[in-house]
């Protein structure tokens, strides 16, 4: 009997682990591209898109990205296409899975013969296809944020997402203006949180910051009071929480319960309406670096990006009846960059790559103002972020 229980325990633990790994099956959704409208004629220019339209990790990113890519395709075609040729975006769903992303890359390169590809949506899926594109010599504009994608620079790989590192730079320079120097860090133990911690640690000394304590939590944890009590004990001047929903919302609530009075900063991982919804009143006063799309209407008229942000918002809302987000913005930037380059250089992959490196200067996009160069394939600076806070359940600019 007892050995039975022991065996059952081992068996069931391993089964549970299996069940965790198995995840949810995702369905295959081949996307028929909208037929080009407008005056463009001739052989279509084929642009590939590898996006996580399904799959738990990527669906919230891949869905707005797909919507945006197809929307920009239509906008380009209505305006006469590129060099009088219609654009055709071929969307492949990688189901948030590295192997599927690799398969999609091969299909787009070998059978669809696309001239450039946007995506994948996630850092993991992007890194899984980087070599394929380097070998095939097809330009890839990733929509994912890991610094590993563009550093060190790879000849054919670009990215339109703001990397964590510049979010940290922006956060630190804001904290400095507030005279805050000693910080306690609490981070999600997933890839996003860990890479945030690395960036916070590596930039601390040069920014004159000191991390007095750092604590982690699991993505599915339901209570972070222990970690926060520990941080409180280290007497930081500010607390920084790096994670994606729902963890930071629980941290925000626990901070209120523990009556921690120091200011709480978070990452761009909470730059979405869901965070306010989950945290309720506990969100008030939390400050974080965010891309501008979240606060587009609040920006001063002098903001260079305001025009394009409002344009994107208008088109997206009209077409999909919901507000656009950062992820869709990455797709907008990638598509518009390709359009600008191909209008001049045509659809030869080598010419597109060359054009991206040399012609994208002060490009006003959704995620920031891009200046690409042979040594910088992302081209964003800390100005891509604004500091945002929550006041009575509404977004507000922190400065």
């Amino acid at each position: 009997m007892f050995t039975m229980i022991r065996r059952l325990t081992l068996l069931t633990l391993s089964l549970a682990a299996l069940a965790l790994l198995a995840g949810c099956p995702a369905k295959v959704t081949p996307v028929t591209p909208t037929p080009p409208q407008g005056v463009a004629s001739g052989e279509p220019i084929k642009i590939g898109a590898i996006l996580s339209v399904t799959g738990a990790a990527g669906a919230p990113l891949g869905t707005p990205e797909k919507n945006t890519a197809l929307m920009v395709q239509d906008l380009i075609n209505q305006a006469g296409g590129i060099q009088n040729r219609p654009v055709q975006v071929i969307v492949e769903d990688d189901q948030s899975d590295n192997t599927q992303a690799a398969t999609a890359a091969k299909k787009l390169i070998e059978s669809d013969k696309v001239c450039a590809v946007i995506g994948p949506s996630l850092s993991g899926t992007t890194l899984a296809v980087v070599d394929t594109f380097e070998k095939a010599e097809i330009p890839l504009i990733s929509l994912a944020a890991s610094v590993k994608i563009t550093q060190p620079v790879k000849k054919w790989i670009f990215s339109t997402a703001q990397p964590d590192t510049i979010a940290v730079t922006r956060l630190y320079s804001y904290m400095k203006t507030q005279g805050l120097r000693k910080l306690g860090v609490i981070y999600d133990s997933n890839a996003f949180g860990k890479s945030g911690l690395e960036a916070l640690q590596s930039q601390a000394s040069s920014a004159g910051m000191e991390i007095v304590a750092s604590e982690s939590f699991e993505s599915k944890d339901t209570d972070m009071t222990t970690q926060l009590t520990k941080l409180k004990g280290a007497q930081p001047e500010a607390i920084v929480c790096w994670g994606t929903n729902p963890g930071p919302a629980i941290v925000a609530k626990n901070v209120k319960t523990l009556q921690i009075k120091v200011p709480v900063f978070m990452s761009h991982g909470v730059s979405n309406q869901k965070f306010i919804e989950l945290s309720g009143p506990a969100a008030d006063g939390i400050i974080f670096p965010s891309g501008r799309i979240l606060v587009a209407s609040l920006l001063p008229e002098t903001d260079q990006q305001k025009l394009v942000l409002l344009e994107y918002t208008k088109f997206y809302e009209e077409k999909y009846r919901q507000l656009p987000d950062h992820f869709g913005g990455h797709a907008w930037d990638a598509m518009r960059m390709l359009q600008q380059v191909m209008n001049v250089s045509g659809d030869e992959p080598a010419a597109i790559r060359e054009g991206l490196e040399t012609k994208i200067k002060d490009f006003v996009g959704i995620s920031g103002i891009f200046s690409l160069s042979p040594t910088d394939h992302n081209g964003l600076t800390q100005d891509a972020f604004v500091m945002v806070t929550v006041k009575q359940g509404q977004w507000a600019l922190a400065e």
Partner: protein
Amino acid sequence: MEWSALVQYVLTGITQGAIYALLAVGFNLVYSATGIINFAQGEFVMLGGMLAVTCYSFLHLPLWLSAILPIGVVMLVGAGIHQLAIRPLRHAHLVTLIMATVGLSVALRGLAKVLWGADSYPLPAFSNVDPVALAGASVDPQSLWVMGVAAVTGTALTLFFRYSLTGRAMTACAARPLAACLAGIRVERMNMWAFALAGGVGAIAGAVLAPIALPSFDVGTSLALKGFCAAILGGIGNNAGALLGGLLVGLLESLGAGYISSGYKDAIAFLVLLIVLVLRPQGLLNVTMRRDES
């Protein structure tokens, strides 16, 4: 600071422990009646939480009704699972049945993802009052709800098994299915009740936990693992053990995170589980529980 930190760790540990205890009681219910470890128990909790959120935020029912209604629904789900998936396999090996519950768990999670997407959802706290201060530490009022509900549920189930006819019949099925059957107890029906009750207990845990945990389709998996851990630690099938096991796992986690490292808090809890299993394979409170293994 030092003392108040300790008090805070202990309070957090007890709150988490109460949740694990509720999970463990759910495992016990099904195990005592059928010998099965029901790995869909975490999904019962998830369903309880998600249904409570749905009733409150989408159907705009009052909060108390939103917390109670899912109990009935998830009991039906539990009974349905037994009738559709477990009962047809009643002649299969125990391991097959456990595999079936793992399958059910994945299926329920998939279904929930289709219904609710991958997002988390909020539910307001049951009592809208300020945190309670205690010896330099503070407790969220919802944590008190969790502890109270766990205590009441545990007591009610113990009384049910000890004094009600149905409860005693279920105990009889667990001890000697054949003898129970000869005594006129409908074993299959009792097993169905066990699944239904496990569903109900899961839903209670899910609803009371929702304001704290912000449920999503996959919130049940890690809870189930911890709850299972608590059940084994206390001695599976033993409800007092479930409570003890739950509190131990919760406290170990919290104190481990507080005094050793938050990165290893799960590892610490599971390490203790392994040590206890080696030293006391029957669990902390079980002495002589045996059942037919035919």
